[in-house]
């Protein structure tokens, strides 16, 4: 079996937004922390299969592995939008000594009616996992290793389109204006019998018969379309379709806006009568494409791309797949800049997960969600704040990451970015989102600070070149970035991705004497872990301007670093972008402004912040319940609230110096 892609149904929905819970103007979207599940559907279904297999007596569990070479679908969808009559012809090749089985997932309202293949009996064992049904398709006699066969399966019935998971996600749904149908519902979702988490890459042909009055839009390249009486017959093709590409059909009446002068040709489409924001999206797209082209090293290798603006509808906030990006109006409820940022996130998934799809998606979201968040942050920085200090702009974004990591979840128990073999995604929605989106993007930013922008983005282009339609896994990512970096990155991958280190850094700053020439300043760093840590130091003037920045590598438990500056710095700080993982304290207790001493200014900073909480709702915190302006450096006891505990630390430390008085 070619383990290239993993099924990623709804994988790329943006965190915290469940269309079912979204109301216009109401940005508080996230479900509560204790809610179980919320994993991507493909993972949910694969886990179910794995559990079923484990529950069986060992003798019955067979190895099985197939290559799916081609999938030809002929699907008729009735005028009610629910009645289905379909044929699926799968060209499969057995690639194991005994293996020849696979799974097919469908909506629970559908049933397999016939199954046949030339010269061999096809066995379909149908099982239920509401709101789905799946067939275990096997052969008698078994296929020999390397034997290829065309299996024709017919199925039909009436779609139920039931919700699943705590977010009430749906694989089909909609109303008279717009309906959507995904794999595992109307279209079969194929999984390998030997490895449900494994991936398939195949050629896709689809013939679709739908009511003539409805327009259709499929996540594949259009081939033809005719109207035959009451039926619209459209054919679609994709030379390389993968499990990572969710086969999605939209039906309804659509309006189309051409995006000028972009490659590949791109349209923004939306249901007729729901054109709000669509023109603005079309205006944004050339800039977003330009940014992503620079990031990836070239344009998307699709014949065309459609960005579909979804109305707010149950169970479908957005996703990306073969040449298609879907995004819900739900994201307009905060601000237009946020909508543009999330549009960038979703479009970037055409690279990060669709074209360059890691094979170990069941164990890590580093190069999918992590890169999509990295892309959205960097896009906004370049688009709106190119003249501001990049560290400051990125920190204003990454502070959210730190607050999520430190306060919305428990950093000590949140799993490492690369899950250990056999480990599951975290249990709660908050943990899943923080783990998949924010821990990963924090780590990528740690790499970026360590490597520098030039090498980091060069490595990203290397990754695209090596892994588009490839078979890259986490170790390949480490290798690709490691080859570009000027320092050994493996300790960072080990400490922050394979394990969950949160080192504590101590910093003591002694500026040069007044009017000293040259002005030689000393910064002493200490740490509580053995790993060599990259630390970017910022020496700032009294007005906050950075007088000197330098990346140092702290190998010993403590070390002094001397820096000569043109003027006398007022403070020395660790680049706050690193502080999703590093917990930084001045050696002078309570020196929250890192000027090397604890004084009235530190006191007043903490006094002013009295009562602030990192997370507003401490009982059932959600992703939108955080205070994004919460100053983590003021939280001296790391409990997520600035109160008397911090004042006590300051009162005890007032007058203390880190490395000498002044």
């Amino acid at each position, binding site marked *: 079996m070619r383990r290239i892609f993993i099924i990623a149904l709804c994988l790329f929905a943006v965190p915290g937004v469940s269309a079912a819970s979204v109301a216009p103007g109401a940005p508080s979207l996230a479900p509560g922390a204790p809610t179980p599940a919320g994993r991507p559907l493909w993972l949910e279904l694969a886990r179910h299969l794995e559990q079923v297999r484990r529950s069986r007596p060992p003798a019955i569990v067979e190895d099985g592995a197939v290559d799916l070479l081609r999938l030809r679908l002929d699907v008729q969808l009735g005028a009610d939008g629910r009645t289905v009559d379909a044929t699926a012809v799968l060209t499969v090749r057995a690639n194991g000594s005994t293996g020849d089985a696979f799974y097919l997932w469908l909506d629970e309202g559908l049933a397999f009616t016939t199954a046949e293949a030339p010269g061999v009996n096809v066995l379909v064992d149908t099982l239920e996992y509401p709101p789905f049904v799946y067939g275990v398709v096997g052969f008698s006699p078994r296929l020999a290793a390397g034997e290829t066969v065309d299996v024709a399966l017919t199925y039909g019935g009436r779609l139920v389109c039931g919700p699943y998971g705590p977010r009430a996600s749906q694989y089909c749904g909609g109303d008279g204006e717009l309906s959507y149908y995904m794999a595992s519902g109307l279209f079969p979702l194929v999984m390998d019998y030997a490895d449900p988490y494994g991936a398939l890459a195949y050629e896709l042909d689809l013939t679709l018969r739908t009511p003539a009055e409805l327009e259709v839009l499929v996540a594949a390249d259009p081939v033809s379309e005719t109207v035959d009486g009451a039926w619209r017959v459209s054919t679609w093709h994709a030379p390389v379709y993968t499990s990572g590409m969710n086969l999605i059909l939209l039906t309804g009446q659509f309006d189309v806006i051409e995006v000028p002068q972009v490659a590949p040709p791109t349209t923004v489409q939306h249901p007729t009568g729901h054109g709000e924001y669509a023109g603005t999206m079309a205006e944004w797209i050339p800039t977003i494409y330009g940014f992503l082209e620079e990031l990836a090293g070239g344009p998307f290798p699709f014949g065309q791309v459609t960005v579909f603006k979804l109305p707010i509808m149950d169970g479908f906030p957005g996703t990306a797949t073969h040449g298609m990006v879907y995004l819900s109006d739900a994201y307009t409820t905060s601000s237009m800049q946020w909508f543009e940022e999330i549009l960038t996130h979703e479009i970037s998934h055409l690279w990060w997960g669709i074209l360059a799809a890691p094979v170990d998606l069941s164990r890590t979201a580093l190069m999918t969600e992590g890169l999509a968040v990295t892309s959205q942050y960097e896009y906004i920085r370049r688009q709106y704040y190119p003249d501001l200090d990049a560290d400051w702009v990125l920190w204003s974004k990454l502070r959210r990451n730190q607050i999520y990591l430190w306060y919305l979840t428990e950093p000590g128990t949140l799993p490492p970015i690369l899950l250990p073999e056999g480990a599951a995604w975290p249990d709660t929605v908050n943990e899943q989102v923080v783990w998949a989106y924010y821990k990963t993007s924090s780590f990528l930013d740690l790499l970026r600070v360590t490597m520098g922008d030039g090498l980091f983005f060069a490595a990203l282009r290397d990754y695209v070149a090596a892994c588009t339609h490839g078979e890259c896994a986490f170790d390949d990512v480490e290798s690709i970035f490691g080859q570009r970096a000027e320092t050994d990155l493996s300790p960072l991958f080990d400490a922050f991705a394979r394990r969950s280190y949160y080192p504590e850094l101590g910093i003591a700053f002694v500026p040069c004497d007044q009017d000293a020439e040259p002005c030689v300043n000393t910064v002493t760093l200490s740490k509580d872990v053995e790993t060599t840590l990259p630390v970017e130091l910022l020496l700032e003037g009294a007005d906050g301007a950075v007088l000197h920045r330098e990346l140092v590598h702290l190998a010993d438990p403590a070390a002094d670093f001397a820096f000569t500056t043109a003027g006398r710095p007022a403070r020395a700080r660790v680049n706050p972008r690193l502080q999703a993982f590093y917990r930084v304290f001045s050696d002078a207790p309570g020196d929250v402004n890192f000027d090397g001493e604890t004084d009235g200014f530190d006191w007043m900073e903490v*006094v*002013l912040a009295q009562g602030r909480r990192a997370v507003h709702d401490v009982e059932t915190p959600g992703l939108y319940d955080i205070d994004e302006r919460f100053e983590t450096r003021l939280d001296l006891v790391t409990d997520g609230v600035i109160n008397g505990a911090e004042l006590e630390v300051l009162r005890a430390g*007032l007058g203390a110096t880190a490395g000498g008085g002044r």
Partner: protein
Amino acid sequence: MSVRGISLMLSAVLSLAAFITACADDLRREKTDFLTWEAQPPPAEGPAVYFSAGEFSRGRLVATIAARGLERVAGFALRLRVDEGKWRFVEFRPASAWTRRPHAAAAARGGLVLLGVGLPADSGGEDFAGRPVGTLVFEVADPSAAALDFVPERSAVLDLHGEPVPGVTFQGGGLAPRR
């Protein structure tokens, strides 16, 4: 020795002790009577932090910091320079005139007194139109002329965003020989 004799001796000793104590008080009063608190007056206009009152008595100096020309400020981060060989910092007490009880802390280090006093950002701030901020207390070990000066480049009045209020002048004071 008779009981009466012992009583006479004890009485004599106590009288001598009282005499010595009285003499010492007189000497100290005599010496400190030469010193008086003097403060630099605030400028005629503009926001200012200054000493509105001071009293030196029985080896203790009590000096009141006041402020004027300030509206809706969060508080004060102040640094004062003292002669640590002469004065020992005892405490800082926020004035009772604050409309809400402020958070205050102060400490001395190497000839400096560092203090912070103020209110949280959500308090709405405090106006100072010639009102006391708080009182500094020192023990004066060496009763001689000495200054109590702000370090203006390291002192500030802070607004509700934590930003220094511009244009504030800081006026110190000190003990000076009585004229």
